[in-house]
């Protein structure tokens, strides 16, 4: 380790204006090697997917594989676009994930507001109950859920998927939004009450507008969860209503030898909306993820 300069304490005030940039000790060799090795582990597969997706099908089936492709093509993407079944899965995914996001935002906003700004008996128990619902395995719940949806004629419907996705997205979204609402000063709500605003007006004209970033982040998170879900869409929806994840499994796997370039192209296409959405709102998601944990 480098010896601390004698005027170590006097450097602190100078660094104060930009504390984020200058924080931490200079990277050691260990840190650089760790980042490099894990970088290969994290991004090597991504590179390989991209290379395969742009490689002509004929060039893929040989051993050993080529790390750097000789020829590039976009034909793997155009074959996806020409496949009406895949387009239907895509449309289903968009519809179901968007509606899941909307429903989740509405339901979790009311619940999170209640948890953040109201005091009543059983509130803490309810909060823990919401979290505890994550412990119950989905494959077990699906046994009865399948029968129930079948009895009420909702099997193979968007609604069955939306209700299931929303329920399992709620716990984290409620906690994310509660963290957000906790930061809104009580005085704002009290002032509105003094002005004679009813509860509905407080929620819809004051709370929700100032929480817009949190609501967007929550909606995006719910969209991603819906977009990524596999087991519910696999079980509760048939081919007409199935979303992309089970749709792709049914389309590409289980044949003699998988059409890898087309599947890798499809993988990129499926990941794209999630990655873009995530990049746009990364800051909020990271803040939401870590807020509860760092405080507690």
């Amino acid at each position: 380790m480098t010896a601390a300069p004698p005027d170590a304490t006097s450097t602190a005030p100078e660094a104060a204006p930009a504390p984020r940039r200058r924080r931490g000790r200079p990277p050691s060799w260990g840190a650089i090697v760790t980042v490099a090795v894990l970088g290969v582990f994290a991004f090597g597969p991504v590179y390989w997917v991209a290379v395969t997706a742009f490689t002509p099908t004929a060039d893929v089936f040989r051993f050993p594989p080529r790390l750097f492709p000789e020829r590039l093509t976009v034909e793997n993407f155009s074959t996806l676009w020409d496949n009406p079944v895949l387009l239907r899965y895509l449309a289903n995914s968009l519809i179901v994930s968007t509606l899941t996001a909307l429903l989740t935002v509405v339901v979790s906003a009311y619940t999170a507001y209640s948890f953040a700004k109201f005091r009543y008996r059983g509130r803490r128990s309810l909060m823990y109950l919401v979290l505890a619902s994550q412990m119950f395995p989905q494959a077990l719940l699906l046994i009865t859920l399948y029968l129930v949806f079948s009895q009420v004629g909702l099997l193979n419907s968007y609604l069955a998927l939306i209700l299931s996705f929303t329920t399992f997205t709620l716990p984290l979204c409620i906690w994310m939004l509660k963290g957000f609402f906790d930061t809104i000063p009580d005085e704002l709500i009290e002032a509105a009450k003094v002005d004679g605003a009813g509860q509905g007006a407080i929620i819809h004209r004051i709370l929700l507008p100032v929480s817009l970033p949190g609501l967007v982040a929550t909606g995006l998170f719910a969209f991603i969860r819906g977009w990524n879900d596999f087991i519910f869409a696999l079980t509760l929806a048939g081919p007409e209503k199935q979303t992309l994840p089970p749709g792709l499994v049914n389309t590409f796997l289980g044949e003699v030898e998988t059409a890898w370039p087309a599947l890798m192209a499809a993988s990129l296409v499926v990941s794209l909306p999630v990655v873009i959405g995530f990049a746009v709102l990364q800051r909020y998601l990271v803040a939401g993820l870590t807020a509860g944990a760092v405080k507690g």
Partner: protein
Amino acid sequence: MTTPTAPARRGLSDGAFGLLLTLPALALFGAVVLYPLIGALTTSVFAQSLVVPGRTFVGLDNFRAVLDGEFWSIMRNTIVYTIGSTVAPVVVGFALALALNSRIRGRSVLRGLFLFPWVIPGVVVSFVWLWIFNANYGLLNGILVGLGVVDDPITWLGDPGTAMAAIIIAKTWASFPWIMVMLLAGLQTIPATLTEAASLDGAGPVARFRHVTLPHLRGILGIVVLLEVIWNLQHFDMIYVLTGGGPAGSTTTFAVAVYDTAFKGFDLGKASALGALWLVLIMALVVVYVRISERGEQA
């Protein structure tokens, strides 16, 4: 009704209105979690098929059939998978968080990029690793054969000896990023003065890690490990797509077994009995975990 505390025109007291706001969420939890949970636990004492209506009470026959069958190998696979898929991502995520906590160039950009594997769908993660682990044309075999580490390609996902390890590697790839983010956030709350003071007292990197960093992160680590254990105990997507529980049942966990028994074997009674035992395992581990971490906090 209690007397309102604020002078406003409201029909409901604060508490009752607060409770009312939670009703939509509670209705969803009741319909999609609680009712199905009770339903499945009830079904475990009936003989019931997915495709034939009606059911008959059979007592504990389903449990007997399950315990006489593959139960213990399913149990073993679930525990091996859960431990592997929790420990490996925590180690990798922790190492990366420590590395990124130094004054490294482009730290926030790197943090964002490293999150990439975590956001993409689990099914896509499975496709990626199916292709990498592919026995005939896969990248991993290509590299290992090229380097002369192995002579012949290995069927990673088709061999009972390697399939579980391969799944754990793929799962590690998908889950280390969020652990890194959580731990990095925790690391950044450690006051720089604390580490500096430890350095001045002559503490080396290892001592600083043990006496400053680790105690400070215990709370976050506890949450991360608990969530990873709960999620891994019920993980389905990647195991189902990568191996489907094979080869020869060597990667069949509770999630895959319950799904297959119910929706491929149509035996809802047996699937529910298996699921009830699975739930007991989850509950038991969570209770033990919470007890241990409470004792740790008191110490």
